[in-house]
Structures are given as structure tokens and as C-alpha cells.
């Protein structure tokens, strides 16, 4: 596997202002993504896992500049992209695509499937007319649908089929990077397997790189080469999929892994049950954001934010007690 860097994210932040009062003044911020850094290599799948509100979807969208970053750098194929103008950015979007979670909301219900998949090809002046139709037909077949389906509307398809349409749309421009934002979470179990396999096959065939965002650890571990764990806007651990499972360092990762229900009644697990709820990203705890729920918390954890450090073998963790 090539270790060539495709995407580099440095100290990325995305804060959403909260307006209040009669004059809609900014009275606070949602610290959705709060200083994260990672790299994605060519041909790899980097999983980004975490629970609701941890900032993983916001990260995916900010990298693509669907949301503008508040601070930080995003470098794609050696080029810094956060300051690019609109037309340069549009040209770059051919290389970076996204698949969304909700197969019902992410397809325009008033466009035919053919138009949905063909639109990017037209906008980027790649193909028109008969040639475009040919490419759309080919894309549909690639994702396991039929060319005739291009004349149908989204409502005529099931959730899993619509997700395939979304994938075909993302593939049309032959991108290098696809951000998969919870692509299988809304699907039935037996359909999840189909779509996961499809994503794997396409990655092999087209040399794609994926940023795979999900909250289901089973799915993330299966598909990813490396996994980053997020909590309240921060990456708390980053490691290869094997290391993360075999040797989790961060207490949150440990709790997350132990919480996943295993479909095997004979497995006896030591369950780490975390107390309480995730704090609000509007008012994150001081020091280490996880300290309010950490079973090993010490004084320093409440006061000083831990650094994200490399502890060897490509394994990074942000914890005072483990570095």
C-alpha cells in the first residue's frame, strides 16, 4: 500500500456562531471541530468514528469546503485549498466527492436518476448528449443497477438502491477522494453488507481513497485501514484498525469498544459503562474534554488539554495518562 499523502489536515477548526438577543449578536459558539490534524494516504480508507455531536460529519464537510473552515489548513495533493477562489475550487471538486447518509434526502426527487448522475458530468464539461448517457449507463452498471433505471425517479427505488445512485453520482467525475458520510447507517443490515462490499470493490477498481465517517464501530473497523476516534470536536486516538482494537489507549476508545454489542452470546465482555452524557459542544469541559466521564481522571486532566502525541507505530493518542 502506497504511503503517499493525498490529503493533509492541520489544526482544522469549525466553530458555529450562536446568535441571540434582539440584535442577533453572537453570544457563543458551537465548537464542532476544535483543532484536529490527520493525513489520508492514497488508496487508503481512514475511518472517522465517534458518537453524535463529536464533529465527524462537520469534519467531512469542512474538508470539502461545503462548510468554510474557521481556521486551519487542508492540503490536497500538495495544494493548500482553504484559500482557493470559487472557480479553482470548483475545478478541484472533481477530485473530491461525497456520499451522504440519508438516501432519501440526498437525491433530488424531481430529477431522474439519469439527470442526477449526469449533472456533474455536464457541469464539469466532461460529457454531453449521447456520450453522457453512455457514461451514466456504465456508472449504473458499476453500482449494480441497470441502464434503464436512468429514466426513473428516486422514489421508485429502495433505500439501498438510492445509496447506490448516490455512489454512482460521486464516481462520475473519477475522483481521487470520496468522503463517505455515514453511507450505510440508514440501511437494513443485509443491505449494509451489499453497499460495504460495493465500496470496497470500487476502491480496488478505481484506486479510490475514502474518509469513512460512521458511528458504528463494527462497520468502521471492517472497512478502514486506519481509524480516528473523535470526541467533542477533538481526535482522541488514531491508529491502524488492528492496533485500535487490540491495543486501545484512550479511555474513551476503550469504553466505545466495550460498549459495542457483539452478536455472540458466548462472548463475556468486561463492560466499561460510562457515567452521564456527552457534554455540550457549546460549553466543552476544561482541560481534557473527556475528563467529566473518564474513569481514570486525575487533577491534571481537568486543567490541561492533553497533546495529540505519536506513541510509536503510527499510533497517536491525546491523554495525559497514556503518553
Amino acid at each position, binding site marked *: 500500500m502506497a504511503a503517499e499523502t493525498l490529503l493533509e489536515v492541520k489544526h482544522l477548526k469549525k466553530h458555529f456562531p450562536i446568535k441571540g438577543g434582539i440584535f442577533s449578536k453572537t453570544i457563543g459558539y458551537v465548537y464542532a471541530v476544535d483543532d484536529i490534524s490527520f493525513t489520508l494516504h492514497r488508496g487508503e480508507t481512514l475511518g472517522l468514528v465517534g*458518537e*453524535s455531536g463529536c464533529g465527524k460529519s462537520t469534519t467531512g464537510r469542512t474538508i470539502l469546503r461545503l462548510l468554510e473552515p474557521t481556521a486551519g489548513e487542508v492540503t490536497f495533493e500538495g495544494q493548500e485549498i482553504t484559500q482557493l477562489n470559487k472557480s479553482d475550487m470548483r475545478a478541484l471538486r472533481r477530485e473530491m466527492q461525497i456520499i451522504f447518509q440519508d438516501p432519501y434526502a440526498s437525491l433530488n426527487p424531481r430529477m431522474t436518476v439519469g439527470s442526477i448522475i449526469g449533472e456533474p458530468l455536464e457541469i464539469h464539461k466532461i460529457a454531453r448528449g449521447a456520450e453522457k448517457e453512455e457514461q451514466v449507463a456504465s456508472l449504473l452498471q458499476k453500482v449494480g443497477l441497470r441502464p434503464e433505471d436512468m429514466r426513473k425517479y428516486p422514489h421508485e427505488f*429502495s433505500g*439501498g*438502491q438510492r445509496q447506490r445512485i448516490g455512489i454512482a453520482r460521486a464516481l462520475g467525475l473519477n475522483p481521487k477522494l470520496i468522503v463517505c458520510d455515514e453511507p450505510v447507517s440508514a440501511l*437494513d*443490515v*443485509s*443491505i*449494509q*453488507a*451489499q453497499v*460495504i*462490499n460495493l465500496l*470496497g*470493490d470500487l476502491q480496488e477498481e478505481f484506486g479510490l481513497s475514502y474518509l469513512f465517517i460512521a*458511528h*458504528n*464501530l*463494527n*462497520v468502521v*473497523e*471492517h*472497512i478502514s*485501514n486506519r481509524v480516528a476516534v473523535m470526541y467533542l470536536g477533538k481526535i482522541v486516538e488514531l491508529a*491502524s*484498525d*488492528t492496533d*485500535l*482494537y*487490540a491495543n486501545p489507549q484512550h479511555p474513551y476508545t476503550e*469504553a*466505545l*469498544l*466495550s*460498549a*459495542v*454489542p*457483539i*452478536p*455472540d*452470546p*458466548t*462472548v463475556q465482555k468486561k*463492560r466499561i*459503562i*460510562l457515567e*452521564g*452524557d*456527552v457534554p455540550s459542544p457549546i460549553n466543552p469541559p476544561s482541560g481534557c474534554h473527556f475528563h467529566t466521564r473518564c474513569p481514570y481522571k486525575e487533577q491534571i486532566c481537568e486543567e490541561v488539554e492533553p497533546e495529540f502525541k505519536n506513541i510509536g507505530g503510527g499510533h497517536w493518542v491525546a491523554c495525559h495518562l497514556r503518553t
Partner: protein
Amino acid sequence: MEQPLLEIQDLHTQFFTDDGLARAVDGVSYSLAKGETVGVVGESGCGKSVTALSILRLIPNPPGRIVAGEILFEGTNLLDLTPSEMRRIRGNDISMIFQEPMTSLNPVFTIGNQIAEAVRLHQGLSRKEALDKAVEMLTLVGIPVPERRVHEYPHQLSGGMRQRAMIAMALSCNPKVLIADEPTTALDVTIEAQILDLMRNLQHELGTAIIMITHDLGVVAEMARKVVVMYAGKVVEQAPVEQIFAEPNHPYTQGLLQSLPRVDKDATGQKHRLQEIPGIVPSLLNLPPGCKFASRCPKAMAICEEEEPLLQQVGPNHYSACWLNH
């Protein structure tokens, strides 16, 4: 053998829609013993939730109707009861909790009010007594500072808290049966762990029997003693939990288990394909003849597309509806 607490016998629930007749529950039978947890597992449209709603006779009519079958609770057929007799059962002997706590709790009443409502109705407690009971229930379900939270509204609580509040409501009259319809699907995994832990502890303390409806086989493995697998309105397999996972008989159950990515098995560095079940669930408005799973079944034979297989015993307490067993 002791009479089961709840027994569903050959239930048929149908929906008469503009697009045709949907046989949502098409001849389903299973039972629940005192203090037992039965896991009902299946994917969208298999009929697991409609079966549960049928037990409590909450099927909207129109367009739905229970057209045949019996639901025996402690020997009495619930389908024969008058509306007021049925009201005495709901929330009192048989309770239910739902998937989306925000949409299942009334947003304009406090949590305390909603919990107290059940005990005032069924046990005739006064307002003060009912409020004390509500605080007691909130303590039982692990909500901190319950005396304060009892006066709060659902929107002031997090998802996990709301689910706890719903459990408190459902258990306030100490029902014999709790129907939990996908209680943790909308929750984060660490909160799910808390809620499942809570349910297990409460069951231990109160002796409640639970029907756990879910699509998550991991949850089933943790919580259930007996598993009922449903597909397109029918029970396709039923067995003790260890058997379902160790020796699944029906090709659908086998397919489901093989298609699951597993964190404890997949983190090997070697990426492999999942064993998928091809195709999609048939539409309930347009069910094919014969076995409903035949079109997706890797082992389908000619007879499978012509005649429906019946549930047959394939082991101790293990039943499966498949022509391969004949």
C-alpha cells in the same frame, strides 16, 4: 409445563391501503414466559413492530385490522376484551417503550406528570403520592437529581435521559410484560450500553418479562434468552439464543449472521468481502407465492417458489420454516 405469560397464536394483521392489501403480520405465533426476555429480530417491514402494536391493540383502524388469531395474556384472549378492559391492561400489566423517545413523550407535559399519569390511572394514587412515585421511578432508572428533573420537560433531557424517562413511565405500575420496540436504535453506543444494563438490572429486580424488538443481533445476543426471527410478516426461525448463533437453520438467519461486520473478528488487517444476501425484501403489497425468501435464497429449490414451508421442529425448542428440513 407452566402456562406462558403471553401467547400469540397465528396472528394476522393486515393494512387495507389504497395501493392494495398489505399482510404485515401473516400467521405469527410465539410465546413469552414469566420473567423471560424474547428477542424479536428482523429488518424493515418484517412485521415485528406491528405484532407488538397488535398485542396492545394499538393498530390504527383504518387502515389496519387484526383479522385472525389470538393473543392470550394469562389465559385471556386480549382480542375479546372491551375497550375499557383493554385500557386497564395497557400501562398496567403490559407496557411499551418506543424507538424515538422525543416523539413518544408528550412535549407539553413534564416528565413527572407523564410518569404519574399511569399510576394515578391504574392505582388510584393522589397527586402527591403519584409525584413521589415518579421521583422513585426516576431514581430507579438512574436519573441524577430526580426531585428536580421530575419537573422538567422532555426537550430539557438528552436522548439517553428521555429513554430512561420512558422506561420509568413504562415500569411505574410494575407490569408483567414490557414491550421494547427498538429502544436503543436511536441512541449512541455508550448510551445504549447504559440503557441495556439498566433494563437487565430492572428485569432482575422487578421480574418483568421483556419482548425486545430489534434489528441488532448484538443486542439480541446480550439480552435475549429466546430469539424469534421474522421476515416479510412471518416467523422463519425460533430458537434459544445460543442455538440461533451457533447453529442457525434458516438460510435467512444464516445470511444475516454472515453479513455482519464484526469488530472482534474484522480488525485483522486483511480486508475481506462480507457475505451478502443479494436482492431486497419483497413489497408487502406484492408478496410472491411460496417461501417469501426464495428469490434471495442461495439454497432455493423449485418447491420453494410454489409452496410455503411451515415451521418445523429441527432441534430442542428450535423451529425453522424451510423446505430444506423436509
